[in-house]
């Protein structure tokens, strides 16, 4: 995924200028991917070079309005019809830490799990509170849901580790 795909998706709703794209991008994805307006304009310039968007009129504040081209539409369709392949994920520090805690001497693994579980639950509570208080659109809520499911998976994995290690003792 690149910023350009996100911008194409927003431009499919109609022509927009850069600042507007930035605002809409963040409204849809929440704080998961903050963009500055400079990134947006740089990306739009490259997309124009590649024929995916074309600049149109300038609005009353001197901002250029961009529209999606046919090539842009084709690129967006290609993106949405291609499943995402799990890329090389960055190393998960928690997984490594727990594996090493099992191997290491003088480390109480159960204690490492207990601390992490409480910390992860706090994160889960914060995300749930954000969801409860969120009056914004469906896209934003689904992004929060994704983070909730990830934190939940971590919590389940920790419970699993605890049960397995208890069994092994």
């Amino acid at each position, binding site marked *: 995924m690149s910023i350009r795909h996100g911008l194409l998706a927003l431009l499919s709703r109609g022509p927009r200028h850069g600042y507007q794209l930035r605002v809409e991008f963040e409204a849809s994805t929440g704080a998961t991917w903050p963009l500055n307006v400079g990134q947006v304009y740089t990306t739009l310039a490259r997309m124009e070079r590649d024929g995916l968007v074309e600049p149109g009129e300038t609005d009353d504040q001197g901002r250029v309005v961009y529209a999606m081209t046919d090539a842009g539409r084709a690129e967006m369709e290609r993106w949405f019809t291609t499943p995402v392949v799990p890329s090389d994920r960055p190393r998960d520090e928690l997984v490594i830490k727990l594996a090493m805690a099992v191997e290491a001497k003088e480390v109480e693994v159960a204690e490492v799990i207990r601390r992490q579980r409480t910390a992860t639950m706090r994160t*889960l509570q914060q995300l749930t509170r954000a969801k409860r208080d969120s009056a914004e659109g469906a896209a934003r809520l689904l992004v929060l849901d994704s983070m909730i499911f990830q934190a939940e998976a971590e919590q389940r994995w920790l419970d699993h580790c605890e049960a397995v290690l208890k069994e092994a003792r």
Partner: protein
Amino acid sequence: MTVLALAGVTRVHGDGETAVHALKGVSLQVGEGELVAVMGPSGSGKSTLLNLAGGLDRPTSGAVHVDGRDLATVRDLAALRRRSVGYVFQDLNLITSLTAAENVMLPRELDGVRSRRARAEAMAVLTEIGAESLADRFPDELSGGQRQRVAIARALVGERRLLLADEPTGALDTPTGDEILRLLAARCAAGASVLLVTHEPRYAAWADRVVFLRDGVIADATDVPMASAR
């Protein structure tokens, strides 16, 4: 104000060699307007804790107070359960031959409240939780989520302010389960207190405070109540 207080509660099933220590000195308080979740694997003592809190079981040692009353001194626990404590289970909550409204009226009628008034109270609480349109339907005509909403209404009808929920989302898909927790959180914001037992992190996370139960003891808890964040 503390609505539910467990102080050094121990529960031993059986005795001698085969004795099972379900709870080993658990202390826990649930304040007014607070949603507290107890998380733990099966066998951790969650259900025992809930049964003791609702007066369905008595502790081997320690004390349970509901609304300031020591349950050991309460003669008529059934009356206490009708008037002070509401229960919601995973399923089998509703009587299938009664409509939703009649189910909600039931604890009030058992308590001697006249039918007309019991119905008015039932409709009031069903309206509060946005389920008034379900009043005349039978449980078979309701979805799983709707049945749980009605069960929550029944648990709160009358003056009851403490709700004990045992895996109330167990049979529901996640959006429906989230809706049930959203409802419980809203009832807490309106002054009720909820003690929720669950093994699902996503539902426990709706609570102001999460308590982790392991082998009959509280292993950990997330911080102080988050009432200010509401």
